């Protein structure tokens, strides 16, 4: 079954709740509609495992989760970047991205208020000394942007509101563009996951960014 299901065998290794997708299929739990090529099973399967169904309050939780990530990125490009000794193309790229991340913070804040919620306040952040150099800054920028893409992609199917899905989609496309440009600049593949960007569950994203959150 696994062979015929995957037009793209490498996707069999996509992790779903700690199981590989392949293991998942073997257990026969996946719904009949298996999309070949989707790192995609992740969010769907999250729900199948009993995560709460989409709801307005769920949407607000997801928006606040996204807002926290945008606070992090915005601080990184608007503040940490100033001490990173950036020059040339790296400096102008970081400046471009800084404006976008600040706009994402503002856009998500407005979306949360518009949906009747309360936007979370920004945590305080701590960044490693490595970000004092251009090389270290760009390396972390790559991690943050690519993680951001995975985080949004992981939450998309959990959203109830189509309007909020549209907003999230419009932001994630920009994050993906950032991720590709930074990867390209530092000699990494602009498409590190290949043909299909892999979604990440919320817990995995939080685990990845926790070291940068002071309080």
């Amino acid at each position, binding site marked *: 079954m696994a062979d015929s299901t995957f*037009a*793209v065998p490498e996707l069999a290794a996509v992790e779903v709740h700690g199981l590989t997708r392949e293991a998942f299929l073997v257990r026969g739990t996946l*719904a*009949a*509609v*298996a*999309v*070949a*090529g*989707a*790192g*995609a*099973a*992740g*969010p*769907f399967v999250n*729900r199948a495992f009993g995560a709460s169904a989409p709801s307005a309050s769920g949407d607000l939780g997801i928006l606040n989760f996204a807002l926290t990530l945008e606070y992090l990125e915005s601080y990184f490009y608007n503040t940490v970047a100033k001490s990173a000794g950036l020059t040339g193309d790296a400096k102008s*790229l970081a400046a*471009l991205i800084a*404006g*976008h*991340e600040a*706009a*994402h913070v503002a*856009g998500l804040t407005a979306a949360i208020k518009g949906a009747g919620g309360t936007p979370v306040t920004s945590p305080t952040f701590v960044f490693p000394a490595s970000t004092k150099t251009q090389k270290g800054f760009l390396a972390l920028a790559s991690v943050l942007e690519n993680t951001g*893409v995975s985080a*949004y*992609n992981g939450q*998309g*199917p959990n959203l109830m509101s*189509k*309007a909020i*899905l*549209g*907003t999230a*989609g*419009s*932001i*994630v*496309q*920009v*994050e*993906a*563009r*950032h*991720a*590709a*440009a930074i990867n*390209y600049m530092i000699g990494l*593949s*602009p*498409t590190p*996951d*290949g*043909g*299909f*960007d*892999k*979604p990440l569950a919320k817990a995995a994203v939080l685990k990845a960014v926790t070291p940068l959150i002071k309080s």
Partner: protein
Amino acid sequence: MPNPVIEETGPPPAGALEVLSRDPSERKKFLKMVGRNVGGAAAASSFAVFLAACGSSKKSSTTSTPATPTSSGGGANAGDIKIVNYALTLEYLETEFYKKVIKSGLFSGPTQSLLQTIGAQEQMHLDALKHAVTTLGGTPVAKVVGKFPVNSAAQVAALAATVENLGASAYLGQAGAIVNLEILAAALSIHTVEARHAAILNTLNKLSITPDGAFAKPADMTTVLAAVKPFLP
């Protein structure tokens, strides 16, 4: 290689595409203009023509009525099948375009290998979407080979950027309409890869990586189909 033929929306001057793809504001204007021109009934019939051109295996021979690639079945999945077949059509256009480009001998070194990577990823999208249509109970649209001009490196690079930015907008435009969550997740996963392609190709063309600024704009099916129409066989 003949210039692309446009039947209804009026032929742009030669090289217009290069202008459009170099200048994001021009492209937006163009898309808006096309979107306005192709409204209502005109949109429906151009969509039908488009499908006929795609070699849809639909039995009905009428092309004067609005049609979808999946009118022959799909039941509850009909909407998703239509969207996935639409995406599949775009992926066919992209895949065949890159095949032609890679064989053209216009590129070498890192650019050639970037184009090979992108082309291979479009093929992966195509395979996955084709499979998805079948699993949803639909019939995948037939292969469509576009008439993309491949005459110079600059022309190809500009066209590739146009196609990728359009593709990213197209996926974004469908996200809210997809019902099946696995299909949605797959579409999101492809969407951001198309965005990555677009950003790098924009860089090669010395264009902004984010032509829409901080929030990418979606494009609806009518707009996208009108934009690719000049390249249909």
